[in-house]
């Protein structure tokens, strides 16, 4: 074992890690960023035309985590035996430089301000008894006004395309009327509406909803960001989700941040470095650094650091905290501890509308972040009083580019056969003449939904796998059913020849075999009370003050919006307070 010393070690080379590494080197610190996967360069992974390969990309999961080395186990209830998630399906964590920020789609939201204080808002409007038994509803401990400058900064780094509604309180555009006020415009104008999205826009407005262009980290025009990184205009090739963008149009850490970082002599990126644990001092109050496995030499390396940033994918953050003994693991029976508590997901269902044979929806045309949405049934934008559930869903047409294998394996939809006689007829009709509308909703936290270490299964390095205990709950199923019901009039207004509404069924059990979303959250949540949160409002560990845990792991609830915009803003927020407060006087920034 050889020991080295740096100012800060950053674990994971995705968005959160890259943002922290950039900010900390700007503050003058020496930074080592450890990534367990491969180096990823857009000139290689995004090379045209070999990158335009569905089998290698989204089907064989080229840019995703290789499950053979490490995975999670999953069970639905506390009394079940968890079994390994052996094949990628329901969710797709990334691996390699850029992380999930390389294979994402690019939908780049801010946050619904009401969601940041959801418990306070629900109690104020409907009373404490409105919260269902067993739901761990809680606040983030930070306000939208505090985060606004960091949302603004992240959008400028990402080159985000969008249409504002208000700037500094003045209505300036046709953007989302439910969106919070902005201090500045989007750096780029909104992406154009593909045909299906334009139909949705007209139909949604005709039934009284308020359609808007999705904010997209897909560049609608050529752009140079504040770090000098350049993006090219998106050509709607449809290869966003699961791919490295060959046009340099989709924001990624690889394109938007790392080119600047790599030139900084204070920054070192080490790939194929699998962090085994964060090392703590004898009384577990301070981290001394990390131990990682060099996957090239198979040797363990100890790296000492004054500051440890845990910024891997959501559940890897929680896993690493549990493996390192940072904080107290959550126990659902005693309702004690916080690490692994409030593990959340999102409710996502897809409805399909078929148009006339004269209308070609050209589903292969698309951009991952673009589309038209409504927020009329998201967050607290509607009256939950008579409905009796917490949460909501934005609804959208987000035609991200449908490739033929995914379409064919998914089947034609409705009651059509998924193979054999009649399959091709139905598949041709669906691929040429249909469109899909998603309800992309929240998922609340519950006392018996959590993360801990599996008692049986281990990873390739002999460490226990992370265990997920997760199931759908009645509150979230009813929310999804209600919102999907609101899609029906839009489909009718489109003049669809037929349609099928996709929704969660009463008592539906979480199914790991079907892709839903990679928007996992929670498990190391932020808050103001160390009894119910792992990290304080600056994402600093309550227990080990020189450890910060950055990512969607900080979300106390699964929000209706896509998480990346919030993750980036929280990363800049935490970095700002590390730079302006923590580094001057290292120690807890909030007294427990």
């Amino acid at each position, binding site marked *: 074992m050889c020991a080295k010393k740096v100012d800060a070690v950053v674990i994971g080379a995705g968005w959160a890690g890259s943002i922290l590494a950039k900010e900390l080197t700007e503050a003058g610190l020496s930074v080592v960023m450890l990534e367990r996967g491969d180096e990823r360069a857009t000139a290689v992974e995004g090379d*045209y*035309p*070999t990158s*335009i*390969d*569905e*089998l290698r990309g989204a*089907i064989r*999961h080229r840019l995703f985590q290789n*499950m*053979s080395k*490490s995975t999670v186990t*999953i*069970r*639905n209830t506390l009394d*079940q*035996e968890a*079994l*390994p*998630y*052996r*094949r990628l399906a329901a969710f797709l964590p990334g691996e390699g430089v850029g992380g999930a920020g390389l294979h994402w789609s690019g939908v780049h939201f801010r946050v619904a301000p009401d969601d940041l204080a959801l418990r306070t808002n629900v109690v104020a409007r409907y009373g404490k008894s409105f919260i269902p038994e067993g739901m761990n509803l809680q606040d983030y401990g930070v306000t939208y006004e505090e985060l606004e400058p960091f949302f603004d900064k992240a959008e400028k780094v990402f080159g985000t395309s969008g249409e504002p509604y208000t700037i500094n309180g003045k209505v300036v555009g046709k953007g989302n009327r439910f969106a919070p006020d902005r201090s500045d415009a989007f750096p780029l104008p909104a992406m*154009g*509406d*593909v*045909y299906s999205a*334009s139909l949705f826009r007209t139909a949604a407005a005709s039934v009284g909803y308020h359609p808007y262009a999705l904010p997209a980290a897909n560049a609608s025009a050529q752009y140079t960001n504040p770090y000098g990184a350049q993006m090219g205009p998106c*050509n*709607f*090739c*449809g*290869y966003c989700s699961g791919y490295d963008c060959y046009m340099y149009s989709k924001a990624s850490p690889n394109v938007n941040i790392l080119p600047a970082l790599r030139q900084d002599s204070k920054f070192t990126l080490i790939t194929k470095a699998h962090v085994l644990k964060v090392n703590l001092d004898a009384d577990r109050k301070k981290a001394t650094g990390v131990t990682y496995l060099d996957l090239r030499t198979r040797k363990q390396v100890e790296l000492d650091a004054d500051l440890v940033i845990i910024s891997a994918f959501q559940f890897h953050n929680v896993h690493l905290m549990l493996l390192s003994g940072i904080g107290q693991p959550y126990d659902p029976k005693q309702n004690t501890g916080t690490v692994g508590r409030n593990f959340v997901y999102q409710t996502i269902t897809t409805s399909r509308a078929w*148009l006339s044979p*004269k*209308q*070609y929806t*050209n589903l*292969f*045309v698309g951009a991952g972040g673009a589309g038209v949405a409504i927020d009329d049934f998201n967050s607290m934008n509607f009256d939950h009083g008579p409905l009796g559930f917490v949460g909501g869903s934005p609804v959208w047409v987000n035609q991200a580019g449908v490739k*033929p*294998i995914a*379409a*064919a*394996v998914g089947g034609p939809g409705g009651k059509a056969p998924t*193979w*054999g*006689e009649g*399959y*091709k007829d139905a*598949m*041709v009709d669906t*691929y*040429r003449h249909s469109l899909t509308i998603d309800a992309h909703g929240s998922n609340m936290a519950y006392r018996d939904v959590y993360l801990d270490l599996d008692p*049986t*299964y281990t990873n390739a390095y002999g460490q226990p796998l992370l265990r997920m205990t997760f199931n759908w709950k009645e509150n979230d199923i009813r929310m999804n059913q209600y919102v999907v019901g609101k899609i029906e009039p839009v489909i009718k207004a489109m003049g669809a020849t037929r349609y099928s509404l996709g929704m969660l069924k009463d008592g539906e*059990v*979480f*199914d*790991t*075999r079907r892709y839903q979303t990679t928007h996992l959250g929670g498990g190391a949540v932020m808050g103001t009370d160390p009894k119910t949160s792992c990290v304080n409002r600056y994402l600093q560990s309550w227990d080990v003050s020189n450890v910060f845990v950055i990512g969607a792991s900080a979300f106390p609830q699964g929000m209706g919006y896509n998480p990346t915009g919030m993750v980036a803003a929280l990363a800049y927020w935490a970095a700002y307070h590390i730079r302006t407060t923590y580094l001057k006087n290292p120690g807890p920034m909030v007294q427990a």
Partner: protein
Amino acid sequence: MKLPSSTRRNFTAGLLGSTSFWIYGGHKVWADALQSESSRPYQPQYFTPEEWRFLNAACARIFPADAHGPDGAVLGAPEFIDRQMNTPYGHGELWYMSGPFRSGAPNLGYQLSLPPRDLYRQSIEAANAYARQLKGQRFDELEPSDQTALLKTFEQGKMMLGAVPAHTFFEQLRQNTLEGVFSDPLYGGNKGLAGWMLLGFPGARADFMDWVNQKGAPYPFGPVSISGETA
């Protein structure tokens, strides 16, 4: 034959006719074109002759010949699957394959110790044994309608094929067949880009700057593969 409605751009009008020819031309064109190409039939590298016959029959039932074009076997799905068996995927190197292997609720996903290549080997042998027991013949020797009926039995998931739930095997076969029909031809399937022609998928063109919204007009250009093959 009715052509799709015209587009707003004159320069695409000429191409539209030829594309429509391919889209609506029926499968005779394909059968002829593919026959001339297939003078040297593919020799399977992984599957035995008996397994290979099973695979060809099953791919043809899952993706049958009809007015849209030839079946999955003609389009190279068996070749695709055979070639996949010698990749990391076929060897199960993309999956978590550490024990213990326990069965559980179906919604918790695949829990067998078999990588795809072993899954095929064991299941095909058991499927042929089942066909012999039921009808006195191997699967590939049955009438197509009997083959389809057998596949439906497997799909319904009420029986085992050796140690493998029949539904698990069927879904593997269905997914790999469709992957073969619709992936880039560099993997051995989608011969003549026929899978993409069927759907109207343009392949590796991947530039739709002018086609963001053409108000429902059909995209006028045929597909291109990664190697530059056109249809």
